């Protein structure tokens, strides 16, 4: 019983960590567009950093590292313990697929930023728009699943 309780607590902590990371990735991701200064959000005391592009760029990378670690953990944990726990639901697969696509487009944008890399302009436009569009889709999917109480795993 104690073990089961500890496991539930760990899962809950993992979920909150994931939500925290998604929140900051969304915030710093949107901050890549010059909107927070225009719309006074960066004027709110304590939020001035949202208008500093290099700071938000660095933070986006830091939270992306945490997301990648969480993704690595979840995938490995899911495969290793799949006989002991529930399976991913359809909505879980949908959200996992969106996260995977966000990671892929983000990784390609990180590669684009390296000094020795020049990607085709059309590919860069596609990656920029796809990365943003997928992030918005994930938020929408998360909100729908929350309202309809659709879990990741059953």
């Amino acid at each position, binding site marked *: 019983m104690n073990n089961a309780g500890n496991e539930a607590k760990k899962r809950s902590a993992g979920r909150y960590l994931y939500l925290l990371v998604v929140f900051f990735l969304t915030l710093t991701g949107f901050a*890549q*567009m*010059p*909107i927070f200064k*225009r*719309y*006074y959000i960066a004027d709110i005391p304590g939020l001035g950093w949202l208008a500093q*592009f*290099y700071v938000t*760029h*660095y933070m986006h*990378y*830091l939270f*992306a*590292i*945490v997301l*990648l*670690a*969480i*993704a*690595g*953990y*979840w*995938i*490995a*944990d899911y495969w*290793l*313990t799949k006989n002991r726990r529930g399976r991913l639901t359809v909505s879980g697969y949908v959200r996992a697929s969106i996260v995977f696509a966000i990671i892929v487009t983000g*990784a390609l944008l*990180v*590669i*684009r*930023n*390296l*000094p*020795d*890399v*020049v*990607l*085709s*302009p*059309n*590919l*860069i*436009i596609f*990656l*920029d*728009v796809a990365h*943003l569009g997928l992030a918005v889709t994930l938020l929408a999917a998360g909100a729908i699943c929350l309202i309809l109480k659709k879990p990741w795993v059953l």
Partner: protein
Amino acid sequence: MEKQLSRRSFLKSGLAAACAVSASSLPRPAAARNETSQLATLIDIRKCIGCEACVEACRESNYDKFPKPEKPFPKMYPDRVPVMDWSDKQDVRDRLTPYNWLYIQYAEAEHKGETFYLTIPRRCMHCVNPPCVKLCPWGAARRLENGISRIDSDLCLGGSKCKTVCPWKIPERQTGVGLYLDILPAFAGNGVMYKCDRCYNLVAKGELPACIEACPEDVQKIGPRDEIIREAKKIAQEIDGYIYGETENGGTNTIYISPVPFEKLNQSIEKGPGKPHLAPAEDSMEDGNNLAAAMLIAPVAGIAAAAGKFYKMTQSENQKGGDRE
């Protein structure tokens, strides 16, 4: 003779660059730091007489690219959004504007007991890893394989992020023009950003940029970056001079040579909006790119943690099974 040599080597590399540009529609990484594929310019400021022939040639050659804003401008919200209108000040030549992508800076400095009066052509530095290009949220700014960075005026929304992240604050905005007019002109975007594109259209045809072609004093040369840097170092050694642009912001494709240290020139020149500095510039993209390696390690660390947990779980189950037996 010097110009002929420069032109010949340029034409060779220009044709190669043109082929590279035409093939760049394929999504593939290229060796941007392969210094033979990037063209750099060498600006020997000892030779510049400040005649502004380059400025005039730039304006003439790029006239068709200059903004043609629609007036009146749409009202933008909130009120703090600045209207940047240079269309009535197209004659301004003493700074960078959307209609003036190159201008002459004046410097007076004493060095080794001699007073120098120098004139310095200033425009975009065309960084090797340009933050204006890499951090543009829409891909409107692009870096060509031949080292040119340019802003696509059909795609730019005029958010001015490129200017904010540029160590020299080069791009300049014109309101009332561009794609934002067709989207949500009141709430997003504010025109188009303009800057030197080193006459990419001429270079693609194997021709010289207008400012180089027009210079009566052969102040500028263009060629493969490695050759240009070799030559800059040779000249700097001969004249006991100084180089700017080789390492600034991680390296640029505009290399200045001066007989006077650039710190002294930087103190002397007029700086401010549209008037870039000549101070040292750290590599803007370096901090972020240093984290890229950690991104490779992160999923491995996550997998290792899950494997560790699984191992512990299995051990504990085996132990319980053994106890029961």
